């Protein structure tokens, strides 16, 4: 790569990172500010993702779809578009994406908002059956004051929403300013050239890495824990030369619940696995995924059609896709044992407040070392909300927060331990749980033991994996998150 391109690449990356930092630091939702459930990126004029500052992998493959959907509307310079429709570039409704034209390209920011309306506070209903119950659907539209008024009128905490959208807008203003400076200094031709070269560079690196994987077709299957019935993810991974095709033919059709995934989320999960197995240190750029082809039948669980409910697809099904794709690759190259395979989504809310958190668990052991305990695995990597920050802001009390010792699977290398978290509600409110791996424990690999399955308890009574229910002040919810699988047979 030419030095001037490389230097410009570093500057473009810096802009994306600065956008992310500005967003996190001025936001109001706990999801964005404490947990960093957001990503920012710069695209070229053609809508190819050039640099991304991602905090959580689920946004990896999903931002380009949002940009494509907005570019189809032919935005003018200076316009900012908003979109969250999972069927035109979104992931699930709480992830609101802004897209704006900037000199030489497009800026994009995505953030998980604390509430976007719908049937339950925090917009993560456990029992939704269509998209309309999950909140306000925003197809790509220009975000002016009129649209903003409509958006805020449909959300439970409009004041906080405005603050968060302002934080996103600040990131876009920053991108506009920085790109203007860059183009003034370097000229738009050179900036465009550098963008093209950055894209090709990451494509080259990943192609070389894929070429080193053994050719062949590898299949795997894994299952989910819907409210009713059974759901299966079937995948066939075909490695041929420097390309890999990941095909989900045979996967269950989309269902009446909310575990459905838009294709963008399925792509993110596939890209994540390829990234882990090829070039984990490569800076994020769309070129890295040129050699990866994802096929999923329309109307299936992993390529749902409207008006499917999708809220848990993003957090839970994506985790299971990762497990299945890792299993398939595992027949060709060494892979880690399964991690907790869920984000343990917990939301509380009433008319007065909404609060959402995800809880860490055990990572599966790797072929060469143990799995870390009490971490987010796979598609999430959000921070916890400090106990003191939580109790200062919400009518909740944390009664216990500790390692779930012994929950990691045995093996030459142990799986990581899960976490125990007990929350007491201090007001009447509702709780929604979107969790997985309560019936099917995370599997060990190469003879390693399974991790312990997770548990959800209300005042010591067992709750199902997915549930929405009313709580009285004083009730205690206890979540025990799954341990990771072990690797290798223990002697």
């Amino acid at each position, binding site marked *: 790569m030419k030095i001037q391109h490389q230097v410009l690449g570093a500057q473009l990356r810096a802009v994306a990172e600065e956008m992310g930092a*500005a967003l996190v630091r001025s*936001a109001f939702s706990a999801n964005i500010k404490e947990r960093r459930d957001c990503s920012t990126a710069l695209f070229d004029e053609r809508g190819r993702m050039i640099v991304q500052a991602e905090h959580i992998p689920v946004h990896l493959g999903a931002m380009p779809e949002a940009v494509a959907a907005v570019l189809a509307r032919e935005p003018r310079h200076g316009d900012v578009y908003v979109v969250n429709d999972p069927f035109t570039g979104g992931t699930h409704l709480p992830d609101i994406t802004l897209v704006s034209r900037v000199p030489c390209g497009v800026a994009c920011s995505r953030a998980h908002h604390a509430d976007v309306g719908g049937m339950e506070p925090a917009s993560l209903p456990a029992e939704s059956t269509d998209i309309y119950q999950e909140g306000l659907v925003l197809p790509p539209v220009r975000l002016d004051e009129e649209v903003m008024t409509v958006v805020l009128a449909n959300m439970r905490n409009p004041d906080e929403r405005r603050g968060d959208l302002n934080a996103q807008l600040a990131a876009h203003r920053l991108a506009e300013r920085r790109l203007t400076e860059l183009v003034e200094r370097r000229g738009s031709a050179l900036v465009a050239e550098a963008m093209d070269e950055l894209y090709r560079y990451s494509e*080259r690196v990943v192609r070389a890495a894929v070429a080193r994987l053994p050719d062949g077709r590898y299949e795997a299957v894994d299952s989910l824990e819907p409210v009713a019935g059974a759901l299966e993810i079937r995948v066939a991974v075909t490695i041929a030369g420097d390309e890999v095709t990941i095909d989900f033919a045979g996967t269950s059709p989309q269902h009446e619940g909310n575990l459905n995934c838009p294709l963008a989320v399925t792509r993110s999960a596939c890209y994540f696995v390829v990234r882990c197995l090829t070039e984990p240190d490569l800076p994020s750029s769309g070129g890295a995924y040129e050699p990866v082809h994802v096929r999923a039948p329309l109307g299936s669980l992993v390529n749902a059609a409207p008006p499917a409910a999708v809220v848990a697809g993003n957090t839970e099904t994506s985790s299971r896709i990762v497990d299945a794709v890792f299993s398939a690759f595992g027949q060709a190259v060494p892979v880690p044992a399964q991690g907790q395979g869920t984000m343990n989504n917990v939301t509380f809310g009433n008319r007065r407040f909404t609060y959402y958190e995800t*809880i860490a668990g055990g990572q599966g052991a790797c072929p060469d070392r143990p*799995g870390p305990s009490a971490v*987010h695995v796979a598609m999430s990597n959000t921070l916890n909300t400090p106990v*003191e920050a939580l*109790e200062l*802001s919400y009518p909740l009390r944390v009664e216990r927060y500790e390692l779930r010792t012994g929950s990691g699977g045995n093996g030459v290398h142990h799986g990581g331990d899960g976490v125990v978290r007990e929350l007491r509600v201090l007001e009447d409110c509702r709780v929604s749980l979107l969790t997985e791996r309560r019936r099917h424990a995370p599997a060990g690999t190469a003879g390693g033991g399974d991790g312990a399955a997770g548990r959800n308890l209300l005042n010591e009574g067992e709750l199902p994996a997915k549930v929405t229910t009313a709580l009285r002040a004083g009730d205690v919810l206890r979540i025990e998150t799954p341990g990771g699988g072990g690797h290798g047979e223990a002697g």
Partner: protein
Amino acid sequence: MAILGIDVGGTYTDAVLLDGARLVTAKVPTETEQEESVLAAAAAVGAADVERFSHGTTIATNALLERKGARTAFVATDGFEHLLHLRRQTRAHLYRLCAEHPEPLVPLERCYGVRERMGPDGVLVPLAIDSLPAFEAEAVAVCTLFSFRDPSHERAIAEQLRRVLPAAHVVASHEIAPEFREYERASTTAADAYLGPLCARYFRALASRSEAAGLPEPLVMRSSGGVITAGEAADHPAHVLVSGPAAGVVGAALVGRTAGEGNAIAFDMGGTSTDVCLITDGAAERTSERSVGGFPIRLPMIDIHTVGAGGGSIVWRDAGGAVRVGPESAGAVPGPACYGRGGTRPTVTDANLLLDRLPPTLPGGLELDREAAERALGDLDPADVVEIVNAEMLRALRVVTVERGHDPADFALVAFGGAGPLHACALAEELGIETVLVPGAAGVLSALGLVASDERRDSVTAYVCPLEEAGELPAAGEADLRYRGQSFELTVPLGPDLAERFHRAHEERYGSADRVRVVELVAVRTADVRPGPAIVLPSAEPIRLAGPVAHELDGATCWIPPGWVGVRDGTTIRLTRL
């Protein structure tokens, strides 16, 4: 009477002795026993009749990174004793799934719970002191929930521990970091306890060796940029984790002030890493938290931004054909290929030599091996190498200026460290900076900063309440403020109309302010400062240097590119564009 400053670095220990108008500097190799290096450095500058002796040390940082601290126990609210192991629940690397965070300083089996619970508004469960289990430990960190609001439980636990473990070093979180967010507070407390016994031994040994050598008791540089007594440093060694780099920034501020440049950027490019820090109106920017060795340390510190690239960084080409610099370094051994000490991999220094920016012989007599540098670089263009490392440096300089709402053109660049003066002019050009200052003591600026340092004691008071309800605040100091509902604070100087100051700061940083939102006061930071000695730096022959030329300094080389001219003013060379 003379003033002595001694800074212990990873490879060399630097000394500066200011005796009236006479400035003596020396560099000696750093030994395993740091006090030996300190005494050797003092002897090397001929220290006698010293009235003030200030010291920068890596003792705490090394002990933390090399895990040589005390057998420490951790005591927390029952149900929360795994706090240090839960961290903030993120994994260490997004795509390396089993990458590990550094092992917590206290193993799980020495983490204990005590029955008690404080909430945001006071006691929820009274303290049951007899639930404190019996255990043995050399040091104990105590961190209970909401002790920043009401430390009574935590204080009682610490008192009990001091009774039953009289030999142990016991630290309670409210004593060191009385601020909200339990993990960061616990992490700071654990580091402080862990380092206590070892640092106490070191400071005692140093004090007695100093006394024997006829030196006064050393003052020790804290990360906040001021010195304290050795006894205070031993009590809370977490405060000295960034001691040396802080001294460098103090030195840079002194150089800037002396040259009439109160607004400056300290640019310290060493062998393996580079530290940059913004100085406004003669004072270094501060921060309230930094990660050291992977552990968050919530203490007032000089806001130094560090990048893992320096003169000794290894240059390589990655799988996609891009030239990369660092983070691997050739270090002092074997050093860059051109040092002829067995290094074969190319470094930034080798590229600088091939570009004729280094003299054939370094001060001290080391002859540089041009052929070895050529062999090491192979088909890598040395100009490309310098451009790539400069891009890293630019990134760091932009972080402390542009990204914080400052225009770098309003600042002078103070370049020091072995490699800083080699790269400074090119960086200044990129950033629109008009003036580069290169101190004569560029190779030992941290030691000079020690000579000039103020005594400084920081304290912090947690509030976490609406600003309107905070009552009377101190007249001087800083306030951490945010809009109610936000999680990150902006630090604003105390003074009249604090809310408006915050709105303006928010506007500057994020482009918007919301004057109807409630402003929340999170913490107030104050400092008790006793000014250091008034320093007059000796002057030297005025000289004028027109680029392109490489100019030799004490422990560093200054590269003046074409179009730049340098004029020595006092001991500092002021470089400007023609």
